[in-house]
């Protein structure tokens, strides 16, 4: 029991509210948003350490006991995600300082950004399914405004699609919650887990589980990703980077949580379905990434491949698979933010996004070029970098569960990812340098720092994978033994 658990939500909400009042003072807004995000990093580091020594941290809001009030639960999985979220948020906000433009800053960019972070953090730590819905909405409403802020034609077109799809998926979420409530009469994750285990997961519950899978697939871009490419290529770079890094990951987090904690009794139906969806997602995403000649589109399809790969580990439902999912989760949040920032910088410099129209940028911007090279290798899983270990574990997990086709497709799509990113690298950075530095549309002033931090992190994560192994193990332990989670929340041992 610790009040600190709620801080990752409280800090951004309060700072965001304050920034709404301080609208005119942009310097102060920048300072305060950096200040609060650094605060978030410190708090999450402390919480990670706390969980390592004392186990799962829970907070019963208002002092009501577990199934009756809203409980906030922080296990190692959530805590690691909180930490990475705040690091990525720091880099994106640093990038936004020099790229987002005065007008957007003036119209509540920073408050909206912080509310988005609050929604994401809330989704990671909540222990109640309706509260998860509310946190999703906090995140989504901020993302609706962030995607349309500035009001260019491209953004307006994309935001109509994005909002419609997300409103519908929110309704489906509510429908699923209504069914769940009718069957079990409870909304608390831990309590639901106990009830499902007691009654056995028969026909109707599997149906509800699949309805949840559809809802979260819509959010995560698992198979139902038709809305994703245009929405993620429309907004300014700092915003699309935070979208690519966080929004789909919240959907994936929800799938992992639900299908390891509540609906884990029929893996031959539900987890196989996740596996099939993941395989199709990877294939379609890879085809999209290879097909387009536009930087924005290629990167958006790479997000989809990443989603498929992450869920392949969940589908295997083995210790190795989930360990891989966790490693890859951390890597993918950092890697996707990095590659979106790099791609955005290329577009910012050249003013175009078509691959055929640019070449030879390496002479003018060697640092940018080599960072892109490292990011591309990391995302496709080349050994010393961060993507490798996750891919190894996920592939091992799928082979253990005898889903050889799933592991095979995962490895095949890694090749496609490498090809699509190298296509950008070779077209943009190699070749004859056609423009001089004076002819460029923008500068990299101030933009290199956040990308440098993220690049350093991918390298560190790859080299120092051993260092975080202990933490990942703790997280996987809770995912594989839901009774630990239930015991921490309800204070009872469900097996006794």
């Amino acid at each position, binding site marked *: 029991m610790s009040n600190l658990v709620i801080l990752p939500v409280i800090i951004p909400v309060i700072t965001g509210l304050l920034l709404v009042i301080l609208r005119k003072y942009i310097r102060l807004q920048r300072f305060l948003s950096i200040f609060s995000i650094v605060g978030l990093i410190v708090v999450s580091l402390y919480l990670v350490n706390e969980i390592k020594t004392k186990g799962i941290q829970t907070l019963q809001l208002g002092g009501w006991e577990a199934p009756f009030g809203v409980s906030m639960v922080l296990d190692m999985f959530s805590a690691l995600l909180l930490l990475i979220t705040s690091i990525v948020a720091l880099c994106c906000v640093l990038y936004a300082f020099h790229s987002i433009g005065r007008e957007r800053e003036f119209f509540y960019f920073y408050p909206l950004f912080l509310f988005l972070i609050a929604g994401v953090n809330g989704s990671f730590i909540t222990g109640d399914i309706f509260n998860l819905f509310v946190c999703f909405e906090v995140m989504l409403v901020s993302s609706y405004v962030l995607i349309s802020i500035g*009001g260019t034609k491209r953004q307006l077109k994309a935001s109509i699609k994005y909002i419609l799809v997300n409103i519908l998926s929110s309704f489906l979420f509510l*429908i699923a919650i209504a069914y769940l409530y*009718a069957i079990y009469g409870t909304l608390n994750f831990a309590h639901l887990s106990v009830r499902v285990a007691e009654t056995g997961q028969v026909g109707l519950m599997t149906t509800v589980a699949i309805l949840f899978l559809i809802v979260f697939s819509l959010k995560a871009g698992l198979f139902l990703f038709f809305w994703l490419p245009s929405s993620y290529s429309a907004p300014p770079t700092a915003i699309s980077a935070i979208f690519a890094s966080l929004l789909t990951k919240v959907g994936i987090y929800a799938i992992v949580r639900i299908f390891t904690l509540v609906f884990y009794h029929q893996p031959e139906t539900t987890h196989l379905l996740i596996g099939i969806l993941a395989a199709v997602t990877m294939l379609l995403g890879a085809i999209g990434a290879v097909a387009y000649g536009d930087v924005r589109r290629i990167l958006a399809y790479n997000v989809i491949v990443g989603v498929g790969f992450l869920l392949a580990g969940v589908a295997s439902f083995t210790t190795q698979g989930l360990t891989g999912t966790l490693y890859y989760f951390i890597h993918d949040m950092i890697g996707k933010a990095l590659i979106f920032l790099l791609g955005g910088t290329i577009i910012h410099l050249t003013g175009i996004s078509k691959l055929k129209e640019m070449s030879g940028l390496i002479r003018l911007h060697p640092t940018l070029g080599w960072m892109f090279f490292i990011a591309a290798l990391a995302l496709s899983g080349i050994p010393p970098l961060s993507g490798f270990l996750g891919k190894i574990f996920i592939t091992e997990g799928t082979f253990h569960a005898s889903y050889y086709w799933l592991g095979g497709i995962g490895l095949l799509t890694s090749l496609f990812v490498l090809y699509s990113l190298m296509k950008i690298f070779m077209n943009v950075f190699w070749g004859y340098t056609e423009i001089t530095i004076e002819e460029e549309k923008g500068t990299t002033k101030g933009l290199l720092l956040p990308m440098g931090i993220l690049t350093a992190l991918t390298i560190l994560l790859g080299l120092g994978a051993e260092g975080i192994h202990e933490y990942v193990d703790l997280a996987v332990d809770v995912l594989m033994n839901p009774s630990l989670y239930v015991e921490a929340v309800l204070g009872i041992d469900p097996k006794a």
Partner: protein
Amino acid sequence: METLMSIFVGVLVAIGTYLILTKNLLRIILGTSIIGHAVNILIITMGGLKKGGPPLLWTKDLTYADSLPQALILTAIVINFATTALFLVLSYRSYQVLGVDDTEKLRGIDDE
């Protein structure tokens, strides 16, 4: 009673789905609104429609209606209200800027 309500919810969802699949942007928003109503009614129905007093402690009834679904839809209603308002304003703005309210024609408009 629950059966009747379920059929009613089904009809509302069918109407909403039909409206969302049309081309006109305003009809699409109306469709989402109707589905929103259907979802709220569904939550109330799924909580059970037994006879009982309103969930107020000073009415000395022996049984009360389940108060949790009521709290849930109250939350869902305000969220739905906010997103619908945002969606309406956004479609107004996009009508001003893009000049069409037909989703089929939206595709043909240049980005810049």
